[in-house]
């Protein structure tokens, strides 16, 4: 499943790197502690987080995530979007709380035809 499918089906908004929405999503990880995400997430994961500062881009880039989804209507910092654009990491935002959004993405990925 591509990131584009997730964005479209769940009505999410992409804030940068639209050209990377074709990234294949192989799994997902939800977490706001960067060491936890570094140690436990995988390449190709869509990372769901409440963090908005530019260090999330370094983590996503190192782990080769498909993209980052920021929840709770939080706005990524300007520096975050600039760095994400440079690194080629799509940043997507959602108004939903983390629990609900993770549930919806999980559901979509595991029950899609």
């Amino acid at each position, binding site marked *: 499943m591509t990131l584009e499918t997730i964005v479209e089906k769940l009505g999410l908004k992409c804030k940068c790197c639209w050209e990377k929405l074709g990234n294949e999503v192989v799994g997902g990880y939800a977490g706001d*502690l960067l060491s936890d995400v*570094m140690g436990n997430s995988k390449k190709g994961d869509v990372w769901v987080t409440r963090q908005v500062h530019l260090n999330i881009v370094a983590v996503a880039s190192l782990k080769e995530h498909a993209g980052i989804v920021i929840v709770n209507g939080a706005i990524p910092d300007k520096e975050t979007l600039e760095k994400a654009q440079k690194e080629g990491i799509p940043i997507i935002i959602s108004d939903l709380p983390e629990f609900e959004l993770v549930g919806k993405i999980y559901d979509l990925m595991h029950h899609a035809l």
Partner: protein
Amino acid sequence: MPNDEYLEGIYYIQGRDFVDAGIVSSEMKKKLKEKGIPEGIIRKVAIITFEAEVNIISYAEHGTIKYYLEPEAVVIEANDVGAGIEDIELAQQEGYSTADDSIREMGFGAGMGLANIKNHSDEFEISSVPCQGTYLRSIIYLNGK
């Protein structure tokens, strides 16, 4: 100590420079990819180096990260000048952290950094002198143990 003959790179890191956190690990990852190092090894190196980098930024005045490409292993050395670690055993306990609030707000300081480094290394060594600094070395075998 690693053989300088195999030294591939030295990076300098400034304390509290969170804006640049990840630059060193990203550079190293790129260099190792160019050298044809297997992806599984690079994945471990990325985690280890990122954590070492963030530790220097979070807790030290400044430091260096060196990496060596030996015939059978990648070796990463992190050396810093700063407050050092009072209790090395405690510092390695998962969940233990001396991070201040500003560090925790960014999602750092969860107390998992050293555990992450240790768990992804084939060999790991750390030592510290309070009020001087900390040294750690991680060895990752290219062909498994």
